């Protein structure tokens, strides 16, 4: 299964074309959108607009207000932070608020001109995630094919930075899978709300 991060303005026929290309070689696809908002109102508007159109909603936290809303909102699946952005960082209060997963993009944030400040910041965030037993999603966050890494490599990097062995293993397997399965269920015809679904005669 492959997660396709799609721009919000992409036409539906282009999306179908992209998905068909993967389906032809036997790979299932999951649509994902990265939302970037500068205020709470903006983020809520974007969530209202795009929640039902994508399988996975990720929010890039650019400031503390957006981070607080994104961490609390049930419609958000994963949040991620730019370690080079000094305005916001993943701290204990956000870890307490967090209902969704925290995404860590390892090779991409560590290799592209990263200095000791970036490393220090990432290891602090990892330590907080470990302390609060946050649901961590590990990803390569790559923009090119050369930067894509295997799940075991990403898990090894996470362990080296300080994430527990269990968290780093689950971060490339169970946690992303559970997010996708939950969203498939939510987007199905039978789903009404949390714990309630229509049981059709064919389902019996």
């Amino acid at each position, binding site marked *: 299964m492959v997660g396709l991060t799609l721009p919000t303005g992409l036409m539906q026929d282009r999306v179908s074309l992209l998905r068909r290309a993967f389906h032809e070689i036997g790979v299932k696809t999951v649509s994902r959108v990265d939302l970037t908002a500068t205020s709470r109102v903006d983020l809520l508007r974007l969530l209202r607009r795009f929640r039902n159109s994508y399988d996975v909603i990720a929010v890039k936290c650019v400031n503390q207000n957006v981070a607080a809303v994104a961490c609390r909102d049930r419609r958000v699946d994963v949040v991620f932070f730019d370690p080079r952005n000094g305005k916001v960082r993943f701290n204990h209060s956000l870890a307490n608020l967090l209902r969704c997963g925290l995404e860590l993009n390892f090779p991409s944030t560590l*290799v*592209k001109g990263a200095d000791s400040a970036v490393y220090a910041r990432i290891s602090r965030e990892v330590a907080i995630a470990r302390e609060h037993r946050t649901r961590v999603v590990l990803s390569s966050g790559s923009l090119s094919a*050369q*930067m894509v*890494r295997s799940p075991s490599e990403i898990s090894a*990097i996470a*362990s080296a930075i300080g994430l527990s062995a269990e968290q780093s293993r689950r971060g490339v397997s169970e946690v992303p899978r559970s997010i996708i399965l939950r969203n498939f269920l939510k987007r199905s015809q039978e789903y009404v709300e949390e714990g309630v679904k229509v049981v059709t005669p064919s389902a019996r």
Partner: protein
Amino acid sequence: MAMARRYFLIKIVSEVPLVEQQFNQVMTESVRRYFGEFGLARIDPRVIRFDSQRSEVIVACRKEGAQDLEAAMALISEVSGSQMALLTLRFSGTIKSLRRKKREKHSTPS
């Protein structure tokens, strides 16, 4: 008693062809950068076989440093200004089983 080791089969994906010495230098530098001198001594990475035709390398390290070596190699992204990636294809406790796993993979019909 002999030190337990782990063996990695690595695929080099690079824009420019690499020689063994270059590969060794890049790998050692990456381990030193992320884990320091003590880490380098603890991991003790060594090139066992370098196949420039297939762009495949067998690297050995100490058993307790295997995960760190995998991380250090995954964090390599360029060599002398051009993009590069080292992909871990297999890892095993002996070179023999590493080769067997590789053969099994190639003989499995897709």
